[in-house]
């Protein structure tokens, strides 16, 4: 699901600025499940803001709330009273939710409290790994379920590069941890499935316009539109 990381506290303070009435709005779907922006975290951030204000002698009122899903109008209706009373809304939702809030409450200052970072899979409880790049043209059927777009550091389509060494990518994470070479994984899995031939298929360069590089995308389910 969509995962996000809370922004550093001082950044949030900077975004809140001199506002006297702050509303921290959580979202109880993706960001709650990744333990970053649910009601629980919203309450905690609100408390932190009050403490900080109290320490520095500012009279700031901070409330918190949470929408079931911030990207649905109906759920935003439920919290609109609280939004009206605030000078600034710190949204802990993913970028989608923040923007829905900003659109719905167009005259309100809506600021992000989190950095939406990836489409992640929970490897274990409280650990997420990036798995999908939302490229718009999924090749997982040919790559034995390993996404070469985000799991390969170079998003290669046709096998590993020269930097693949003993199954590990030459690039490390910012924290210095090793990552698997995606194409090595793909090869191992294809072998285990008896489909090695897929490794040697010539894949043309990806049509990146189907992904986020092609400008803002839109999807419509024609058959489900209300009549």
């Amino acid at each position, binding site marked *: 699901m969509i995962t996000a990381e809370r922004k550093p506290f001082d950044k949030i303070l900077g975004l809140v600025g001199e506002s006297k009435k702050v509303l921290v709005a959580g979202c*109880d*779907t993706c960001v*709650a*499940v990744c*333990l970053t922006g*649910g*009601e*629980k975290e919203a309450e905690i951030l609100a408390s932190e803001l009050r403490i900080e204000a109290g320490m520095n002698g500012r009279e700031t009122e901070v409330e918190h709330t949470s929408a079931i899903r911030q990207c649905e109008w109906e759920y935003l209706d439920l919290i609109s009273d609280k939004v009206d009373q605030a000078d600034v809304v710190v949204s802990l939702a993913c970028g989608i939710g923040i923007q829905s809030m900003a659109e719905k409450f167009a005259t309100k200052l809506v600021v992000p409290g989190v950095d939406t970072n990836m489409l992640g899979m929970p490897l274990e*409880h409280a650990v997420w790994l990036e798995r999908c790049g939302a490229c718009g043209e999924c090749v997982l059927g040919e790559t034995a379920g390993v996404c070469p777009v985000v799991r390969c550091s170079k998003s290669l389509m046709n096998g590993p590069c020269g930097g693949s060494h003993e199954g590990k990518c030459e690039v490390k994470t910012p924290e210095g941890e090793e990552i698997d070479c995606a194409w090595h994984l793909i090869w191992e899995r294809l072998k285990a499935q008896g489909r090695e031939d897929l490794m040697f298929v010539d894949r043309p360069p990806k049509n990146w316009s189907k992904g986020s590089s092609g400008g803002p995308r839109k999807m419509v389910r024609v058959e489900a539109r209300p009549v």
Partner: protein
Amino acid sequence: MTAIRLQRCKLGEPDERGRRRPEPIPGAFFEIPCETVIFAVGQAIVGDFAQGLAGVGLEGDQVKTDDSTLATGRPGVFAGGDASPKGPLTAIEAIAAGRKGAASVHNYLRGEQLVSLWSNPLPEARPDDAEVKKVTRQERSPMPEHPGAERRRNWVEVREGYTEEQAIAEAKRCLQCAVCSECMECARICPPKALIHEERDSELDLEVGAVVLATGYDAYDPGSKGEYGYRRYPNVLSALEYERMLSASGPTIGEVKRPSDGAHPHNVAFIQCVGSRDQKHDYCSSVCCIYANKQAMLTTDHVPDCSPDVFLMDMRAQGKGFDLFYQRAVDRGVNFIRSRPSAIKEDPLTKDLLINWEDEQGVLHQNRYDMVVLSVGLEPARKGQEAAGRLGIALNRHGFCDLKEFDPLQSSREGVFVIGPFSEPKDIPDSVAQGSAAAARVMAQLADSRGTLTAEPVYPPERDVSDEEPRVGVFVCHCGSNIASVVDVKDVAEHAAKLPGVQCSTDTTYVCANDSLQLIREKIAEHDLNRVVVASCTPRTHEPIFQSTLREAGLNPFLFEMANIRDQDSWVHKKEPDKATAKARDLVRMSVARARLLAPLSKIDVPLTHSALVIGGGIAGMTAAGSLGDMGYEVHLVERASQLGGRVLQVGRTIRGNDPARILATLEQRLIDNPNIHIYLDSHLADFHGFVGNFSSVIEDKDGRRTPVDHGVIIVAIGAREERVDLYQLDRRPGVVTEMDLERMLKEHDPRVTEAGSVGFVLCAGSLEGDHPYCSRVCCQHGVKNAIELKERNPSRPVYVWFKEMRTFGLLEEYYTRARDLGVVFIRYANGNRPQVSSEGPLTISYHETALNRDVSLPLDLLVLAVPSVGAEGSVDLSKLLKVPLQRDSFFQEAHVKLRPVDCASEGIFICGAAHYPKSIDETISQAYAAAGRAAALLAKQVIKAGGVVAEVDQDRCAACLTCVRVCPYSVPVIDSEVKKARIEPATCQGCGVCVSECPVKAITLHHYTDAQILAKEEALFMEVS
């Protein structure tokens, strides 16, 4: 008037009453001039009133009455005072008579027997000559009198009375023979009238189906060992006296003070085995090593620079966790000296004590101590022995109850069970377990009458408070002076009265006393209270009492909150009463804030399956299954091997000379004969689900056949096994075997044993060190047993036993004595100087002999190792399946070492036998009964109450993120497949709150500990109240 004429008299002969009457002397007249004569007249009753009253007779001038009841011959007519047979007496007697008579009238009018309260005289107390000789003779204080010259002019009393000093001095002359002077002040002052002086011994006839004797022990009186100077040297104490000294409620209020001068001692010695392991007591008292450890450690707490010395022979820390405790004492600086001092001498000037002792190298030392504590042993209670005599129960040669090894609770009289130290010196965990065991025996014996005499308490219907505003009643306790001497209780009550929501606020002396509980009920009714706050002691002990009171008043018991202003306030802030009072106000305020938010909670009745699953078919499992079967419950007994019996099958003879094969055979037959018991051989537990009262398991046999079984309880009895450590050439040389190997070899008459020329035993091979720092408890007795066996078979064969600590505790000590008498050589070694076994060539063992101070090599034909016991194979898997923890020593962890020794923390799961900790056969049998008893207490219920303080999911808010499912340590939450939301079964939820605090959308609430209630307390603390 000018004179009075008198005639002199002389005393005549005694009359029929023994009185000598005056007889006038003829002619002996004389006169005294005077102006006024005052006649002192006597009194007599006018007896004619009695003439019309049938039954009321006169005796001479007085009315005939019973001396103690004052009843005359006519019912309803009583007489006393001047009318009494003793004749006219003083006003005091008259008042006394009035009271006696009133009591009799009272009884008479109530139709009760006219029993005189004073008819049973108290036994006369006389001081004996020895005590009287100690008293310094003092004359009576002279009573000051008004001088006669002064008195002539007025009516002033002759005697002036004592001054305060004189009165006190005079009172001090009292010998206090009987201590009680029957002033009755104590009875008068006691509010609940608990002191009844007139109460006498009475005999009651009770009809019972079983008797359990728990008559305990007497501490050995060390005065019998004159050489230790007890009662002669003031600074020699017995361990019980020292225990009182260390206690905060003792005579020195917890300060360690030398009796001779009240100073803090800097050198303290403990002498072990006083009254145990000696000529008159050929047994070990089992508990003294550990209590001395405890006392030594407490000594270092109380007197920080003190490093106590403990003189001992063996450290008998064979209980679970006790070696760790011993190690803590060593780390704390307690010195353990292997030596048994024979005497203590006193330095008469300083009253210090001198101990001469010999170390293991034979060097003599003398140590000086400020104080010495004698660790006294346990003797069978004399009163218990008397009771045993009256009940016709046999005692063994040590004076404890004679019990059979394979039926260790049953005395020689059928239906009379014995538990605790009267059976054998025993510590608390074992005694508590024995209590449950006796309960099991009784439950089996009385199975037919189960439930016939019980009554369900009836409570009034619960009032629905959901629409009501919170109305709080506050009750602040004085606890006598425990709270009131530090905290201003009235102030706290007044403060509470002003808090929002409080309708009434009172203080009371003892809020847990019946009259206060009555007051609470009354106030609930009077003020329509729907929440109650009690500010007193700790909810850990007293919450149930008040919850019960609420129920009796028609309120849900969860509408109750306690503020701890005693254990956590008045007792710990004694020097700051103002602050303690402020804290008490705060705590009450916090409690009131929470109380307003408390909601009624109900427990649900969950039906249970009245059957049991027992895993493990060794002696523990068989005994437990048999016991439950005898009580009439269905039992499923699962055993991994192809026959029942477990490790006991390998034992040929016990240390007491009994053959376990017989008991196993009898037990097995009993199980087979009982149609309630189903036995599954070659089987194991493949699956396990559910919660207490409603478990479902799957038993799988070796062919893969699966049998589902529903049961209410489960007993784990999977035993233990030997760990074949790689020490002393075990499994590298054929002549080196383990104790269980030896058992088998003895049974099979293996020539390696029968023809062995010399045999060695190494006890503690791998124990009390390394990976097994704990004691395996049974190896010492096994070793001693087999050493005796081998020596008896061939007395000329050398038998050696190397040991670290000889733990033949309790009544096993006599076998250690026996072994030494037979010539078995016992050699102590320590971790730092282990014996060495040759790796090739002839089998020899080398060790350092301290008596000779040189290394010695001995040839052996057979070397037997006592290797550590560890949890049975499969205990790790079973622990995961049942979700009950194993401890670091690989045995199952009980819920509480003393109070719940056979329960697991998870309800409905019990443990017994070696799976709990290695133990001997008789201990196993006892513990198995205990587990059966505990299990039966559950099975005896019709329904189980579940719920209350449990977590609940608000499914509307649930995001199905799986967090609660993953974090719950008991795997309780599940995602309901129909609604796709998390669900928590109240009957299995343990109420820890981890899921509540992890839920990212705050969809879960822990009832009775909600966020709002917790935050209410935090905020109320900083609230200002005008």
